């Protein structure tokens, strides 16, 4: 909570508790680090905005037929370098353990293929005019997913990537507090501001 009367610019007065713990908590679950610091309003805002974006991305990137949450998976196999995963891990707890577990399980994913990498082999049915029976979600390939979820799979990927990147901003805020506005920076650059900053450093 802000302790100063001038809440707009006195960011140094915000109690960040242990910034490292707050940062890790904020990475694990968006908003959790801010709740730990007692900054409940911001915690709720980060949780709703970031988790909402992430969950909507999971919804868009999946379906009953192909399995849910297919837009988020870990894979650095030949011909399937899933670079969006590097952004998606910004939302730590929902992403990292599940994607790594499903990658470890390889051909036997759990939870109906939730966050599981798609099969690498391209089923013949995906290219045929008269497709064969749809494989189960645990054996479905990327070609099938893109065929059944045209544009929605990519949209889900974008949403989950943006959620991960936004959470990096939230982690920074939990560790270091709000970034000073430009106007506050300019005030600090004035001779009076520099003198004040110098006094602060001497004290610390």
């Amino acid at each position, binding site marked *: 909570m802000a302790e100063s009367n001038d*809440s707009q610019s006195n960011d140094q007065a915000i109690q960040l508790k242990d910034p490292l713990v707050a940062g890790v908590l904020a990475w694990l679950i968006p908003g959790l680090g801010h709740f730990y610091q007692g900054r409940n309003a*911001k915690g709720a*805002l980060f949780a709703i*905005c*970031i988790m909402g*974006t992430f969950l*909507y991305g999971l919804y868009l990137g999946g379906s009953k037929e192909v399995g849910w949450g297919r837009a988020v998976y870990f894979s650095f196999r030949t011909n399937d370098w899933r670079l969006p995963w590097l952004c998606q891990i910004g939302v730590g707890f929902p992403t990292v353990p599940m994607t790594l577990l499903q990658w470890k399980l390889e051909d036997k994913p759990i939870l109906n293929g939730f966050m599981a990498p798609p099969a690498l082999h391209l089923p013949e049915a995906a290219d045929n005019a008269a497709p064969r029976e749809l494989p189960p979600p645990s054996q479905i390939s990327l070609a099938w997913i893109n065929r059944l979820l045209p544009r929605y799979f990519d949209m889900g990927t974008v949403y989950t990537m943006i959620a991960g990147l*936004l959470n990096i901003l*939230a982690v920074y805020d939990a560790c270091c507090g709000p*970034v000073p506005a430009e106007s506050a920076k300019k005030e600090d650059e004035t001779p009076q501001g520099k003198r004040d900053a110098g006094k602060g450093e001497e004290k610390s």
Partner: protein
Amino acid sequence: MSSFWFALPLIVSISLVYAATRQEEVGAILTHAFRVALWIAGFMAIVFGVLFFVSMQVS
């Protein structure tokens, strides 16, 4: 559904989170978020206009 609608929740989410990393008070966050949302929407409109113009020239 038009693809444009997918941008709306993203603009709201991005502007709120960005503003929240710059301000601490809820009122200031909302005001800042509104300005950021306008900037994003304006920037997207300009890019859309440029791409639309280029596509008209090409076709």
